[in-house]
């Protein structure tokens, strides 16, 4: 096993580096005020001037070193394997970071007239067209800023659709294996959530039949599902829900499993959201910004948020004339930067390339499964023998049962070997779940290594389980005290909070 040791700086808080009078910034001078002649009383109403500011004061070189050191204590796709299931952590092409369009964009204002941004609007127009082609939908809105934001947009559209038809439908159906955001998005849009149980990893059709009614607004589904299984009864699901008067919403988090093979629009879905920071290689930025484009088919196009990108044969423009639009779901047009990166990815790959990416991602999953066959300690529950698509869910239940080594312990131990852990404890229908998605980016050798590490952890669990429980030991810090972190009487969410409530900042 390769040895790994993550950087470990004794890095103080930026506050602890502060020394009064230092600064990393000089304001541009303005001759009207070079001598500070303008009185604050002329700038601020009486009683509204700020007295005290408690920000740290640090020089530029200290700021650069501080954040550079922090970056060295962080793990990215560029550092190594990052197989978080359902997060699709594929390689982020560098051309997307370094190109003339992106650098220009820094100073492009959203109020600029369309004539001054035709090159950019053209990019956005084709991106929307291509995403519609990939999903089999008609039109899309680029506004939503993330997957969950796209979901909220989609369910608000479903709500408006039924309301506009004078129907009171307040129930949203969601399979028990669905992403947690689905439940929260439906609730945020005012729906009552009805959970549909799974049968051997698939939507239980009988339970679905029993759940639909005149109150059914729709179903939120991801396909392939979170077990990496293609919902083979999708046409039947579509028929059941549509016959009841409901709509089909496609959670696009798992699109990487079927690109070029099947399209949500052809499966009966009415609305789709895509996570461009997953399937289309825009970086995730440590938690965002993402882009959660929402696309719709047929009548549902009339409910998309405004504006939509359009082309009249001569120029590209923003179209606000959407008949029943739900309105705007954020300021301006969307997260333009990740949108451009998705455009670059699709342009670089082409249609064949996207299909190839899906094939390679699915091959990676199944190759990994084949590597795990001879490894003890892990099961692959549900649908035995059926090939998985973009991801596979292992269960560490045998290790947990026999050696009290849990999925979390396995995840923490993985970190010690210079790889990132999978998504754990998800989906909830798998006990001790390890949800693994390598994507098309992971070299075969890296997948071999990952399987060997899991075998090694399993061996250690059987022979010295107490050792596994102590891991990680090679990361910047050891396992964290999450009880203390979360208790209302000990948690520290900011330096100010610690000062105010007398919480002691732990020493380095």
């Amino acid at each position: 096993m390769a040895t790994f040791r993550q950087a470990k700086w004794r890095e103080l808080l930026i506050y602890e580096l502060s020394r009064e009078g230092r600064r990393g910034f000089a304001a541009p001078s303005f001759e009207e005020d070079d001598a500070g002649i303008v009185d604050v009383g002329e700038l601020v109403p009486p009683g509204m001037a700020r007295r005290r500011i408690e920000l740290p004061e640090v020089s530029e070189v200290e700021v650069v070193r501080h954040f550079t050191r922090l970056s060295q204590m962080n793990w990215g796709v560029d550092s190594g394997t990052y197989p978080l299931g359902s997060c699709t952590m594929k390689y982020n092409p560098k051309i997307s970071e370094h190109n003339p369009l992106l650098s220009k964009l820094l100073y492009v204002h959203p109020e600029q007239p369309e004539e001054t941004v035709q090159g950019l609007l053209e990019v956005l127009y084709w991106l929307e067209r291509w995403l519609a082609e990939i999903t089999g939908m008609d039109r899309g809105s680029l506004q939503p800023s993330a997957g969950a934001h796209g979901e909220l947009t989609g369910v608000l559209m479903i709500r408006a659709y039924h309301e506009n038809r004078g129907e009171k439908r307040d129930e949203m159906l969601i399979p028990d294996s669905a992403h947690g955001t689905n439940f929260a998005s439906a609730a945020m849009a005012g729906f009552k959530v009805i959970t549909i149980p799974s049968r051997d990893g698939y939507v239980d059709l009988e339970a679905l039949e029993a759940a639909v009614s005149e109150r059914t607004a729709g179903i939120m589904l991801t396909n392939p599902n979170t077990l990496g299984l293609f919902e083979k009864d999708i046409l039947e699901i579509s028929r059941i829900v549509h016959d009841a008067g409901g709509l089909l919403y496609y959670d696009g988090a798992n699109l990487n499993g079927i690109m070029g093979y099947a399209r949500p629009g052809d499966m009966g879905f009415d609305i789709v959201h895509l996570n461009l920071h997953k399937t289309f290689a825009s970086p995730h930025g440590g938690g965002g910004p993402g882009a959660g484009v929402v696309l719709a088919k047929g009548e549902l196009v009339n409910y998309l948020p405004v504006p939509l990108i359009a082309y009249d044969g001569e120029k590209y423009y923003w179209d606000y004339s959407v008949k029943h639009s739900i309105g705007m779901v954020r300021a301006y047009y969307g997260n333009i930067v990740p949108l451009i990166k998705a455009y670059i990815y699709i342009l670089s790959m082409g249609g064949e390339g996207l299909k190839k990416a899906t094939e390679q991602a699915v091959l990676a999953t199944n190759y990994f499964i084949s590597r795990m066959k001879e490894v003890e300690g892990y099961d692959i529950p549900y649908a035995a023998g059926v090939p998985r698509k973009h991801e596979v869910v292992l269960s560490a239940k045998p290790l947990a049962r026999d050696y009290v080594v849990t999925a979390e312990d396995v995840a923490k131990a993985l970190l010690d070997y210079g790889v990132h852990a999978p998504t754990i404890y998800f989906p909830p229908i798998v006990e001790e779940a390890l949800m693994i998605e390598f994507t098309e980016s992971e070299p075969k050798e890296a997948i071999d290594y990952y399987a060997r590490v899991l075998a090694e952890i399993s061996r250690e669990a059987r022979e010295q389980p107490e050792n596994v429980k102590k891991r990680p030991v090679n990361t910047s810090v050891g396992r964290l005290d999450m009880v203390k972190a979360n208790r209302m009487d000990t948690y520290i969410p900011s330096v100010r909070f610690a000062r105010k409530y007398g919480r002691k900042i732990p020493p380095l």
Partner: protein
Amino acid sequence: MAHVYFCLSVFVLGGFLGLPWLPNSDGRVTREMLEAVGVSDVSELFGDIPDEVRLKRPLRVGAGRPLSEAEVYRLLTDKADRVSSCLEMLCFAAGLAPHYVPAVVLEIVGRSEFYTSYTPYQAEVSQGMLQALFEYQSLMADLLEMDVVNASMYDGSTALAEAFLMAARVTRRRKILVPEFANPCYLKVAETIVKAQGLELVTVENGADSGLLDIGDLKRKLDDDAAAVYVEVPYFYGPIEEQVDEISSLCHSHGALLVAGVDPLSLGLIRPPGDYGADIAVGEGQPLGLGLNYGGPLLGFFGVRGERRLVRQLPGRLIGMTTSMRGERGFAMILQTREQHIRRERATSNICTNQALCALAAAVYLSLLGSSGLRELSRTIAVRARYAASQINRIEGFRAPAVGRYFFKSFAVRSELLSAEEVRRKLLAKDILVGPVVTRLPKLGESFMVAVTEIHSRADIDRLVEALEEVVGDV
């Protein structure tokens, strides 16, 4: 798609086995993997997809074939050539305003250990991002004088919508009072999002001359059904609200929450929301080192006072400081039982992916500024804006500011001779951008917005003033 083909160079790649982002696509590697799986062709792994839903033709996207990096670069150069930035014209547009993005910020957010990472689910290997986000929360907390600031929202508008939803959860009430002079785009977005839960936005008037909230109107509309009173400091249309203490005590006497929307760069001069009793402070963090990026990505900030009843209802991710089992200092995501992946339909919000990298940028920016830098920057912006308004005000046919006396960087200019739209168009012909034009607010007559920041020199402002003189001179 013809014009996409048109831009391509004549070089053609030899098939797409060479796709550099697919490390196993070489025939030999693929074969080894297929053998291990026990299938002869990769298509067998898709055998469970029913024939009726299979796509039986290639996807028609991109240029019809994979493109090399060199080809893509040329194409993007062509697109960039057909975009002009604010640096090529003179941009005084408001809503978002052009602020300088320091090179240090670009350098740090460009470090791929940060930008290629995911949400820090595995804290031990993600301390860098976690500490940076904790510092973002801390810096914003001190900037706003709010105790707890979350790790970010999508933008100022969705942060405001979430503030209204949170106020409704805390108070179990549904009426939200919003000022007439609040950011119109934010109100539109908030309405789209909150009405699904039955919340109602009620407008409180602003004075036509003072621009300040009409306290009489507030008193008439404020009752024990109100979940929140929203106040903007400064208002979108310019005026700096100065009755904040009175509004705060009125609001609290009815058990409603005070939600304050602020411009972060104004806080070197103007009292922060925590100082006048705001329960929730929100706003747009773009001025803190983010580019304009044609309107996104942006950075919604969201802060609350430290009371448990508020923190428990906080939407979004929160980073906390703790210790490791070995006694080291460490950071992790905390209070996740509020969040969607645990609480599902009972979560405080559905937000998952936020704007972490933008929060990192803001942390770097605020670290560079420090207390004295912030004071200096706030001041230099306000002085420039004051200079611009007073120069414009001297021109016959324009009144600046159109309403109120005090403003920070944005103010409305009232046009008395021409329609505001006409002024905007004529300035555009001179490569000067102002706006947006004020619509649906008869109180302000024919007005348009102007924003002045640290990037505008005195010469830039003088050019705007001259251009406005020419515009009315032609009448």
